């Protein structure tokens, strides 16, 4: 197991380097002179040249990249073009908010998805199954930003049960977390159902039945445990689109997380801020995937550890 973790850690090093390269190249892809863009509008020629010298923008591209990586690993993500404050400071304020939103959303994805999937799989092709699957199909088809607006309209404006927007109390978390978690829950439900149906058809479940075990023991102790293995992978993959989805949901509910920070930064062309936000979200995703992989091994003892 320890070896496996070491091996996976070694594998993510090139991925992380690749991600930093892509993020570094964002600045290079912007049309125009990066020194002029970084200096901001209306900056004098001297300021631009000074900046070019200070930031090493006159050096060859590979040297610039190396110094960029060096800075990133020392926690220096550059400064915002808007207020000249370190990007990292802004990220540290906003990251906990986004992580909190992501945590509650993934909780909804897992709990709702599993329950719905199990209900479906227990009696396939029954009314409850068809009903759950229709809702799941809607869940993967509705745009999250639209679902968010609809929920806001019904629960905050019409019924006035929940706050419209912001991030001040526990009540503020409910609608955004449902909005963000719904799509994933639908996918997990579909996956759980098909995985359960496959497992239930296998010999060892028939043996369990033949032994005269009670149905709920068969479902929960025998079938579900093995059916969950592919579901874990799906949850891991969902975490990626969920992190991406924070961009939309944070904008709908006016939550000051990383996602909204990136969108605002794109609008104001604050490139270092965009780079910092995209980089941090991707690093979080890479490490979550690593965790999921490790969990997959722990749950699935059939895989050869070598």
């Amino acid at each position, binding site marked *: 197991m320890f070896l496996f973790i070491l091996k996976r850690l070694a594998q993510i090093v090139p991925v992380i380097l690749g991600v930093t*390269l892509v993020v570094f190249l*964002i600045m290079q892809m912007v049309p125009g002179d990066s020194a002029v863009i970084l200096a901001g509008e209306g900056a004098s020629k001297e300021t631009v040249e000074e900046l070019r010298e200070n930031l090493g923008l006159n050096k060859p591209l590979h040297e610039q990249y190396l110094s960029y990586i060096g800075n990133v690993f020392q926690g220096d993500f550059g400064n915002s073009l808007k207020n000249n404050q370190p990007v990292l400071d802004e990220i540290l304020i906003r990251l906990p908010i986004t992580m909190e939103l992501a945590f509650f959303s993934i909780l909804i994805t897992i709990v709702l998805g599993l329950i719905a999937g199990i209900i479906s799989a227990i009696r396939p092709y029954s009314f409850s199954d068809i009903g759950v699957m229709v809702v799941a199909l809607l869940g993967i088809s509705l745009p999250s930003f639209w679902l968010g607006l609809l929920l806001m309209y019904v629960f905050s404006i019409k019924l006035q049960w929940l706050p419209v927007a912001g991030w001040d109390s526990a009540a503020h978390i409910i609608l955004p977390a449902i909005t963000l978690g719904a799509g994933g829950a639908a996918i997990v439900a579909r996956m759980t159902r098909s995985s359960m149906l496959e497992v239930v058809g296998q010999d060892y479940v028939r043996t369990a039945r033949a032994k005269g075990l009670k149905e709920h023991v068969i479902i929960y102790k025998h079938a579900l445990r093995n059916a969950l293995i592919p579901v874990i992978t799906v949850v891991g993959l969902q975490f990626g689109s969920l992190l991406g989805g924070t*961009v939309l949901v944070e904008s709908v509910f006016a939550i000051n997380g990383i996602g909204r920070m990136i969108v605002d930064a794109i*609008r104001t062309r604050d*490139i270092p801020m965009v780079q910092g936000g995209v980089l941090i979200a991707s690093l979080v995703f890479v490490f979550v995937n690593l965790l999921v992989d490790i969990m997959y091994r722990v749950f699935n003892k059939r895989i050869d550890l070598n």
Partner: protein
Amino acid sequence: MTVNASLVVDTAELLLARRQVRSEKRKAFFSAIGQNKAAVVGGIIILLYISMTFLAPILAPYDPYEINLKDKLQSPSVDHWMGTDDKGRDILSRILYGSRLSLGVGFSSVFFGASIGIILGLVAGYYGKWIDTIISRCLDVMLAFPGILLALAIISALGPSLINVTVAVGVFSIPLFARIVRGSTMEVKQLEYIDAIRTLGANDFIIIFRHIFPNILSPIIVQGTMRLATAILSAAGLSFLGLGAQPPSPEWGAMLSSGRDFIFSAPYMAIFPGLMISILVLGFNLFGDGLRDALDPRMKK
């Protein structure tokens, strides 16, 4: 000479058999998809939307861009079935014309991403070794960006516009196609008929595009249909954020975005564009599910 002639005959037989397998598969596929009610419903939805893009000028009761401030923010009525927006424009007409943008971005971005992804996957799968290693590592990096963040990164560099959204969403489809094509290519290239063609002296280009590519189409089509759903959602999402289509464009995501400001007083401004996106995406998902069941019997049980 005789050896060569018999090889030609054998290869011809192999190719013929291969073609027969393909045509039988095709027949089975059409009957399977015809029997799948959900897929038929999905297909009808998609066709309706596509005809909407052509018929918009005939169907639309008003000019989608004409501002008419004295008729602003009217609720749905006989005159304006979906109401009017904050500038007095007829929402139904805007939605009809907007179908061209929303479908157009979806199709072109998937076409763009699929073309590059398929070529990368064919090359990686066929040649293997270091070429495969390099391509696969690049794909890993692209997949390490969560959700639409890679698209956002691209837009931040290129600037907000509908064309840049198409490129960005397309790029983010590349690794998904490349992965699938790579796997299928590796399977197919080991089949006997490929060896036979190679012995006859066919070059790599002909083997890859004439003989491998047509045999790995099914997973590409399934992936393409599913990707269309995601691409349309992502593109609408980016326009919703103000990073794609700009006002007064009747792109559905952009319409939803301006409707958000009137969610208290005129919720229909946001409801209808969202509904149109949802039904279209539902159509692609239904059709994609049906395609997968029809083309991939392993998934069926």
